[in-house]
């Protein structure tokens, strides 16, 4: 798609206006998933397996159904059979069939006239289980003798002789690996492990569903992508997508975890059976046990480096479990592992492994943080061994425009070099440190995404413009869309209203995921509103009686331009809009595409920590994020993405983890024990927005949402090493682990 990329001279882009939905969100008026009510509404509650792996022998709901006010119970028997592939996986995950595959796996659900009653009824549903052996660790799940979770389900890519829990195998690379390692002065190889973490959005999943016996339904749901919800729910229930209209609520965080379905098809099934709307809201413990945390991983990395810091070869093997279903993100993890570097020989190997855990879902740059933890920790170790500056060494090897990426293609214009240069120049990098304090750095990458996108814009009679997008506003994207529309039309920001349209109002839109909303919906918004200005130029040309080629659109007005245009006073958008009924009718613009010019975003982080040598407690003292935004449309929300990503990464590095007991049950199912950073855990998080325009977007935008979670894992590990003299190769770096390492060092 040829784009007339504008990178300077902006009037609205780059300013920081109040977000359009701000007042609703500071006054409690904004309606989130659980804030919807319908006449006659029932409450749905799930029954979940207490076992990590168990055959479901029988489900007896008679006692529950005998309670007055209990209207329906559903089990897998209420869902259609014969689904295949990912449709089957989703259906199976939403409601177990023959076997409960993890602690928290849904096995039945009940709808009743009150939530208290539904909870009581759920406790009365008797499930007869035959407990099976289980496995929750990725390395254990690949060993001979580990229980096979879905024997025979592995795809063609898996070589002979591997455990049946290995679902997929990937191998690729380029260059002469052996020669590369032979040319190195230092070759190091280590194994790293990361534990599963959860996106930790504060809003639990919630929906209000209605489905009639005729197969027509509606749903209100908190989601990052309502078209995904529609497709997945329709498939799980065997209904046509067009018969299901899905309206997104405001969304209380997602980070990738709300790009799939968990309760939605079940609420629809309950509604169909009960003949009434059904509301389902997860508890926090359900969110942690039974939504989609990340994979856990086990990673071997080997790298070769010359004395001067030149990287000569690199090899990575990633083993990831994504729960009891395939599709752990080995692909993107491998792609990101060496993406920061121009290395002549690279080799990647990945194993997608089943374990008795919940089906992993996307979490902010899925796979990349794990890969970065391994690679960027090893780069730090090698820089230490060779007494090299870690940022300058990264700069020396940095990927740049024209570099053949570790994952194959040639990089277009990218901004890693610029982030490294900005980090080196940042006062933070040279600031003094005290005792027991250390500094760590790391870089990271996310390739971003375009995806199916459909946007409409409509001109109002007063010259204001309504833009309808299909990407839920999860962090200020209405403001970004309004800024881009205002810029493209030359009208005030306040004159643009951005709506998040339901599935009945636009073509298919992928979710707000892959850092795509500002890029893809933004691109489509610009193109849609340009159609409005083009049409307005035509109306003005008609009115003036001159050819449309002699009319230009500038500062929100049609103006005659060129030698033969004649002298006419400009016609403003308001004047043209007021007359549009008589000059040809309503005016709107629409753009839809699957744009693929999303440029990847690189970031480099600097962190200072202090480690208490007597307790292993790590406090984060100072943090700086440097990242390429291409062009920051609303810089405050770009900074917010940087800061939020860093905070989540710090949590992942230090304290967040899924803890399974020997019984395979999740032990930390509340926020008290699933330890996300609290306000007093963090310092201010400084940000530097680097702008290396993305040639694939009219204003140069790169998605910024995901890259920020990638560098913190290794950056904190590198800082801990600098502060305490110990290298932690397993996450989280919780105090008992750090103290044990300090004691072992002596």
């Amino acid at each position, binding site marked *: 798609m040829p784009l007339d990329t504008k990178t300077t001279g902006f009037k609205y882009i780059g300013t920081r206006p109040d977000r359009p939905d701000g007042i609703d969100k500071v006054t409690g008026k904004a309606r989130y998933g659980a804030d919807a009510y319908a006449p006659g509404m029932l409450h749905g509650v799930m029954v979940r397996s207490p076992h990590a792996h168990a055959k479901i022998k029988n489900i007896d709901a008679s006692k529950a159904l005998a309670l007055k006010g209990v209207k329906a119970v559903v089990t897998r028997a209420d869902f259609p059979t014969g689904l295949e592939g990912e449709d089957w996986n989703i259906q199976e995950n939403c409601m177990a069939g023959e076997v409960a595959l993890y602690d928290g796996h849904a096995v039945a659900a009940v709808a009743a006239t009150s939530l208290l009653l539904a909870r009581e009824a759920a406790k009365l549903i008797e499930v007869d289980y035959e407990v099976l052996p289980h496995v929750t660790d990725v390395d254990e799940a690949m060993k001979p003798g580990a229980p096979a979770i879905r024997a025979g389900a592995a795809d063609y890519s898996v070589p002979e002789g591997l455990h049946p829990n290995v679902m997929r195998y990937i191998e690729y690379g380029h260059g002469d690996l052996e020669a590369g390692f032979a040319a190195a002065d230092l070759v190091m190889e280590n194994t790293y492990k990361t534990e599963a973490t959860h996106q930790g959005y504060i809003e639990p999943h919630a929906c209000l569903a209605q489905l009639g016996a005729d197969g027509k339904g509606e749903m209100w749901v908190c989601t990052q992508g309502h078209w995904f919800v529609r497709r997945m729910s329709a498939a799980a229930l065997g209904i046509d997508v067009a018969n299901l209209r899905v309206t997104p609520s405001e969304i209380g965080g997602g980070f990738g975890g709300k790009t799939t379905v968990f309760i939605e098809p079940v609420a629809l099934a309950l509604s169909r059976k009960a003949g009434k709307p059904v509301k389902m809201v997860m508890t926090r413990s359900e969110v942690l046990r039974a939504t989609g945390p990340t994979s856990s991983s086990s990673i071997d990395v080997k790298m070769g480096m010359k004395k001067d810091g030149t990287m000569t070869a690199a090899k990575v093997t990633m083993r990831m479990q994504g729960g009891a279903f395939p599709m752990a993100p080995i692909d993107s993890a491998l792609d990101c592992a060496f993406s920061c570097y121009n290395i002549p020989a690279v080799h990647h190997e990945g194993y997608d492994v089943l374990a008795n855990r919940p089906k992993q879902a996307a979490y902010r740059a899925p796979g990349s943080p794990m890969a970065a933890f391994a690679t960027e920790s090893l780069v730090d170790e090698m820089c230490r061994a060779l007494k090299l500056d870690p940022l300058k060494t990264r700069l020396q090897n940095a990927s740049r425009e024209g570099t053949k990426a570790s994952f194959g293609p040639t990089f277009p214009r990218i901004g890693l070099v610029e982030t490294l240069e900005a980090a080196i120049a940042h006062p933070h990098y040279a600031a003094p440190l005290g005792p027991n304090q250390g500094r760590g750095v790391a870089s990271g990458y996310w390739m971003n995404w375009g995806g199916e996108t459909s946007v409409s814009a409509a001109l109002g009679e007063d010259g204001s413009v309504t833009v309808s997008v299909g990407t839920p506003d999860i962090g200020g994207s209405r403001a970004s869309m309004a800024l881009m529309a205002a810029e493209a039309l030359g009208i005030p920001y306040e004159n643009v209203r951005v709506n998040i349209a339901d599935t009945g109002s636009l073509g298919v839109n992928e979710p707000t995921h892959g850092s795509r909303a500002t890029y893809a919906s933004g691109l489509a918004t610009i193109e849609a509103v340009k159609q409005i200005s083009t049409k307005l130029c035509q109306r003005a040309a008609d009115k003036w009686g001159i050819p449309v080629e002699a009319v230009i659109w500038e500062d929100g007005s049609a103006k005659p331009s060129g030698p033969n245009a004649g002298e006419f006073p400009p016609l403003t958008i308001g004047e043209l809009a007021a007359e549009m009924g008589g000059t040809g009718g309503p005016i709107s613009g629409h753009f839809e595409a699957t744009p693929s010019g999303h440029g990847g975003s690189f970031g480099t982080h600097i962190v200072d920590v202090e480690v208490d040598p007597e307790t292993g407690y790590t406090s984060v003292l100072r943090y700086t994020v440097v990242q390429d935004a291409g062009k920051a449309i609303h810089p405050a929300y770009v900074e917010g993405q940087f800061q939020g990503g860093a905070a989540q990464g710090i949590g992942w590095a230090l304290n967040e983890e899924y803890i399974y007991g020997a019984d395979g049950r999740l032990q930390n199912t509340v926020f008290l024990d699933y330890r996300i950073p*609290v306000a*007093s855990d963090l310092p201010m998080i400084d940000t530097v927005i680097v702008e290396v325009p993305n040639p694939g977007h009219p204003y140069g935008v790169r998605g910024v949402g995901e890259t920020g979670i990638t560098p913190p894992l290794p950056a904190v590990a590198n800082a801990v090493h600098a502060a305490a003299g110990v290298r932690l190769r397993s996450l989280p770096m919780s*105090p*008992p682990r750090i*103290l044990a390492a300090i004691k072992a060092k002596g």
Partner: protein
Amino acid sequence: MRYHTPATFEDASAIAAATSGVTRFLAGGTDVLVQMRADIVTPDDLIDIKHIPGVKDVVLEDDGCWRIGAAVAGAELTAHAGLCADWPGVVEGMGLVGSTQVQGRATLIGNLCNGSPAADSVPGLAAAGAEVSVVGPKGARQVKVEDIPAGPGRTTLAKGEVIAGVYLPPRGKRGGDAYLRFIPRTEMDIAVVGCAVNLRVDGDKITEARVVLGAVAPTIVVVADAAKALIGSTLDAAALDALAAAASAACRPINDKRGTIAFRTDVAGVLARRAAKIAYDRARGAK
């Protein structure tokens, strides 16, 4: 579930004694409501004691004793200048329980009766020599704080017994106390290890001491050997070493999601040293 609002502790006790089902007393509710929400406990009778006169009192008795009502919230204790001056360690233990919001509701007695070995306010109370007044079917009795916990989630209280108030002994001259806990974050966690130290000095010399550990055994542990290590010393390096060794030796911890045996044992010694220094400084301070 039946909800009761008795006007006296005797009535509260009578309701609890008469029922055959599960009973919970409600003061701050920060444990009971969580347990109800998680289906850990669904009481048949919930007895709200906040309508009983005096439960919100913090009173300095004529003999120097502090009497704290059963429904006094943490935030009310930390805002009480007189109590903070006398028993800073007790108050800081309570102040560490949960968030600002939880502090608005949580109580000392609730923290004690929840029976957690990791309860942050309990080591400080025990180190202070605090007692509680228990009202039950057989009348009232005074019980030392350390005699209430019986193990994780359990207390020594008999059916129908309810705690009406806490009594802290007169602070007296040249005393100081302190409580420290270890958590992996700065806030919002359950103690992995807790340690309270209460002592008295004569000049620079420690004349009385009590050291109490939390989260290292099924109940809090009053560590007599640790107190012995302090008494007679000027908190010199040898005394601190002996204190830390005694504290670590008294640990009977478990490996769990919050910490390991080795970690808890080590850190108990570290916290004992640090808490002792604070208590010592407070005892020798301006007060």
